[in-house]
């Protein structure tokens, strides 16, 4: 009698061979060896890598996923921004050191408390050769401000926008808004060629559509599912900032494949999503690693679900969390334990003041001491042990695995029960918008960053009307302080207010900060020039990349 072999849900032979091959392949492919450590040794830190010595024909750059669209009013995640920062330009421009300077607007001037006037450059041309006009600028700003547009929140305080001269746009706001000019260095300040966008209609942003921008590089070919090429804009209006490379090819792959592509020389660079990926690249003789300032911080974001509404439980968990352990385990030591919800890249003014205030913050130790744990236990006693276990969301990826495990460990240390719930990665982003999803977890971990070099840009998230203030935090006078800070254009005065907001936020531990992740770039030693800060999301970084040798 023979076995029925016709149907094999998972063919046995293949399964065994696969399992064996898998385990063997793991051993064989591991060039670093089982004892290898990824502790950083020679990672430079600064806003840029060294200046390019000469031009280059082409290079290949890795990103982690294919862009969804090039219409940044529809979607603007890291993949889209990394590419389009080289193609589209803004009224203001974020610099590698994360300061903001006028760009397509040669001047931006507050003419009253609520009125800002942009004086536009006259020499800007789009990629199709047509000159940029004030009508294009006004139309672009109105498009960004439209309901549902990705950057519409940047225009929340705007009451009117008008063309007030051949090269002049006047914007009227409800109140003086110190952050508005910085927002114009982000995607809310992109100037589009109206004629091109309207001609493309709904097709604009798709693989077959041309770009409608004026940057040093223009869209070449988007081979859907394969790669995207940018080509040097032939007659770029700012000849001094023209691209050093003629062609740039973007390919996408997961972290493992990016490491392989860089070490094998198939690709020449990548901005790494996770600093942990830099660990194995440090061992390569062909690759250089650099880090730079960013505003990124991984935090445990408390939801309105239950126990975490009590700030004492949040404070207790923060005191017991082993941030040092998380940075080692999740980021190979290439991140820093952090005490605030926004990174030092946001200290774009009054940096020493912000730095000193940060150092004075308490309640978020790198490694909890016995005193911290005792304080935490006392807080739990005062608040009462929640009847239900604290639930922390995980998406199954490495970083969130570590953070959720650390949170469970912290909870156990101070007499709290905690458990992990896994939410699919594709659904994880819905935590910000879906209350029913938040009802499944008391905390979810996420990396949060802001596009402005101003902490006020983050701390507005603690206002009573803010969408991400899930625990209904209501610090005394917080809302009015946010408004006052937003309206204060004197840097010293605004820094003082921002620090006050920071103190309110961290005292209440609205979110539990975990680790600051600097921007991390990996690049072949044959090329150089790219900024190593988080500016690559908005600054035309690829234009600066050239040969490292003359």
């Amino acid at each position, binding site marked *: *009698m023979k*076995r*029925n072999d*016709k*149907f*094999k*849900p*998972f063919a*046995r032979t293949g*399964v*065994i061979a696969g*399992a*064996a091959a*898998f*385990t063997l392949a*793991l*051993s064989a*492919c*591991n*060039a*670093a*060896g*089982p*004892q*290898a*450590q*990824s502790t950083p040794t020679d990672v430079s830190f600064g806003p840029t890598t060294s200046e390019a010595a000469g031009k280059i024909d082409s290079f290949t750059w890795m990103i982690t996923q294919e862009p969804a669209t090039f219409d940044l009013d529809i979607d603007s995640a890291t993949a889209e921004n990394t590419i389009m920062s080289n193609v589209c330009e803004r009224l203001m421009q974020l610099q590698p050191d994360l300061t903001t300077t006028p760009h397509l607007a040669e001047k931006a001037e507050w003419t009253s408390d609520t009125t800002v006037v942009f004086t536009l450059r006259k020499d800007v041309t789009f990629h199709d050769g047509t000159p940029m006009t004030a009508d294009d600028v006004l139309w672009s700003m109105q498009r960004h401000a439209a309901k549902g547009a990705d950057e519409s929140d940047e225009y929340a305080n705007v009451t009117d926008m008008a063309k007030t001269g051949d090269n002049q746009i006047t914007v009227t706001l409800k109140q003086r808004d110190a952050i508005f000019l910085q927002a114009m260095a982000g995607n809310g300040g992109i100037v589009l060629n109206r004629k091109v966008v309207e001609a493309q209609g709904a097709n604009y942003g798709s693989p077959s559509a041309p770009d409608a921008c004026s940057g040093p590089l223009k869209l070449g070919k988007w081979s859907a599912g394969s790669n995207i090429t940018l080509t040097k804009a032939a007659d770029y209006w700012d000849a001094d900032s023209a691209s050093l490379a003629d062609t740039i090819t973007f390919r996408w792959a997961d*972290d*493992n494949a990016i*490491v392989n592509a860089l070490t094998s020389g198939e690709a020449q660079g990548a901005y790494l999503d996770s600093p*942990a*990926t830099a*660990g*194995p690249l440090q061992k390569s003789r062909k690759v250089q690693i650099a880090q730079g300032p960013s505003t990124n911080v991984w935090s445990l974001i408390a939801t309105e679900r239950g126990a975490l509404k009590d700030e004492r439980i949040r404070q207790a968990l923060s005191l017991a969390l*082993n941030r*040092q*352990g*998380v940075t*080692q*385990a*999740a980021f*190979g030591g290439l991140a820093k334990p952090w005490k605030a919800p926004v990174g030092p890249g946001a200290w774009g003014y009054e940096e020493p003041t912000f730095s000193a205030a940060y150092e004075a913050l308490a309640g978020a130790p790198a490694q909890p001491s016995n005193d911290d744990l005792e304080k935490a236990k006392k807080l739990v006693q005062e608040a009462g042990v929640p009847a239900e276990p604290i639930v922390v969301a*995980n998406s*199954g*990826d*490495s970083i969130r*695995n*570590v953070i*959720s*495990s*650390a949170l*469970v*460990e912290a909870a156990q240390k101070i007499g709290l029960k905690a*458990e*992990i*719930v*896994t939410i*699919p990665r594709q659904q994880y982003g819905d935590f910000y918008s879906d209350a029913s999803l938040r009802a499944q977890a008391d905390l979810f971990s996420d990396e949060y960053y802001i596009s402005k070099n101003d902490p006020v840009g983050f701390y507005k998230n603690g206002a009573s009307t803010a969408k991400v203030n899930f625990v209904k935090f209501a610090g005394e006078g917080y809302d009015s302080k946010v408004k006052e800070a937003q309206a204060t254009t004197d840097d010293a005065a605004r820094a003082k207010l921002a620090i006050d907001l920071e103190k309110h936020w961290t005292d209440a531990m609205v979110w539990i900060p975990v680790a600051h992740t600097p921007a991390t770039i990996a690049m072949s030693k044959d090329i150089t020039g790219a900024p190593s800060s988080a500016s690559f999301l908005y600054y035309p970084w690829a234009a600066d990349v050239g040969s490292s040798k003359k």
Partner: protein
Amino acid sequence: MSSLSTPTLASTPVIGRKKRDVAYLVSLGFLLLVVAAALLAPWVAPYAANAVDFTAIWQAPGAGHLLGTDQVGQDLFSRLIHGARESLLGPLALLALATVFGVTIGTVAAWNGGWIDVVLARITDVMFAFPGLLFVVLVIAVFGKGPATAIVALALAYAPVIAKFTRSLALAEMTRPYVDAYRVQGVGGAFLCVRYIIPNLTPPLLGYLVVLFGEGLMSLATLSFLGFGAQPPSSEWGLMVQEGQSGIIQGHIWPTLVPGAAIAAVVVAVNVVGVRLSDRLNSRFER
């Protein structure tokens, strides 16, 4: 009825006839060891399955941690032992379910024949035509992920193969004289199937199920690896492989290698035991 002689199992012991079958004995010994470790996990594991220790992350095998540690300093040996429970119970549960479905369908089809056989055969053919993994993923998409759904989904995927196998065995069994004898005496079909036919199918079916156990273990581990089965903080082996992945590019192979090797070793051992068992039981069944 007692005067009727129904075929019984031969008296020869199933196990132990070939004393020099080293692979079989080693495999059996290994499996017994794994089962014992799973049963005694709380007593034999040196650490709790989810004990985090950030001072001991990514450690290679050594004195403190026999098989090393993972990304958050969890002891891999302890997780492996604790995870053996879920990793072994999962395929057991799925085979139990699949066997109930499959044997019922196969026996009913064989006994009734005619249109019932045709309809059941077509249904199982349709199941055969559908890729197993895709079917399981679809079930999980509808009912949600987790170990219970994965087990039920896989049981549904495995049931047709067991049904086909059972049907062919049952058809052969029905040609035996004792079946006609019982029929002549007016014994009902259901009673005859449950009391005599199905028990007589057990030996060859058992051997086949042991082999399927290995497939089931691998399939469940695959689903956990893909995020559809066991969920953190479980130490199910497929999930351990998935969680260890991030260490590979950093040069830390142990968190993936250890559970991966455990899966491979158990699957190989189960197959060696299953094939031997199947051969011996089949030869006696055919006699």
